[in-house]
């Protein structure tokens, strides 16, 4: 049911984008920022819930994901990982996000904090990420995402 709700939301957002394409550039950029922030929230909820089906809708088929250990995952590999690790997550919080829109490409940079329990052991991880989004046929899709571990509080 949650997956269905997310699908409806994604479809609604995508439809809205098509309408916004005719607006002046600045308004289009503003709409793009709002859209991308919404998509980032959808991502977090889907990942936390292990909802690979919902997440799949906002990822480009050629999307690449670079995990905290430097491993390179395809979309399918990432979705499989989400299915497995989602139930382990207690919280997934992104913060300090900035959205940069460059026409049909957008970048989101921010920090993340993840807590959970895996094999009976609590874990806490944090770091920085950049997600790269591209607008294809009116819909924004993530084409690359990367996580780099580190303590965001220790920014130099």
């Amino acid at each position, binding site marked *: 049911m949650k997956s269905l709700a997310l699908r409806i939301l994604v479809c609604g957002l995508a439809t809205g984008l098509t309408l916004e394409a005719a607006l002046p550039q600045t308004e289009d950029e503003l709409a793009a920022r709002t859209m991308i922030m919404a998509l980032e929230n959808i991502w977090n909820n889907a990942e936390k819930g292990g909802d690979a089906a919902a997440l799949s809708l906002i990822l480009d088929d050629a999307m690449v994901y670079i995990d905290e250990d430097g491993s390179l995952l395809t979309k399918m590999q990432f979705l499989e990982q989400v299915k497995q690790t989602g139930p382990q997550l207690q919280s997934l919080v992104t913060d300090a996000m900035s959205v940069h829109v460059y026409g049909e490409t957008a970048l989101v*940079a921010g920090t993340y904090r993840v807590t959970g329990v895996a094999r009976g052991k609590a874990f806490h991880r944090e770091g920085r990420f950049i997600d790269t989004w591209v607008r294809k046929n009116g819909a924004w899709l993530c084409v690359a995402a990367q996580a780099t571990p580190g303590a965001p509080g220790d920014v130099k």
Partner: protein
Amino acid sequence: MKAPWKTSQLAILAMVASSIQASAQNPVQERILILESAWNQAVQLRDGKAVEPLLGNELIYIDYDGTVMNKGQYMASVKSSALHAEQVTNEAMKVRVYGASAVVVGVYREEGTRHGKRYLHRERFVDTWLNREGAWVCVASQSTLITH
């Protein structure tokens, strides 16, 4: 008369152009790969003037340890006397072009000394390039240490 940085950049480009294999599928991909190699050469030479035109003013640079830098901070790190990169290479690069933007995924290998101590890093990176009036500039670069 060409500006000094242009001379420097062209010299580096000429040096690395021959090293780019014909693996790139189109001229844009080939161009981006040349710029990636030029960036490496400039880092190795601590040539800030050569690095500068490769980067957009709004650059977001996330280093392998999670440090985030803007363009000025990154430029300073390239020129830092504490860092001496002796060998800088990229491996397994793939370029995807999306109109006026391009995303490069690859492995960055750097070997050298920092504060007198030897180091060797292998990092997976994503660089995002934008085409601005015919010139490609990198606006985001992130690295993650390969530990798996």
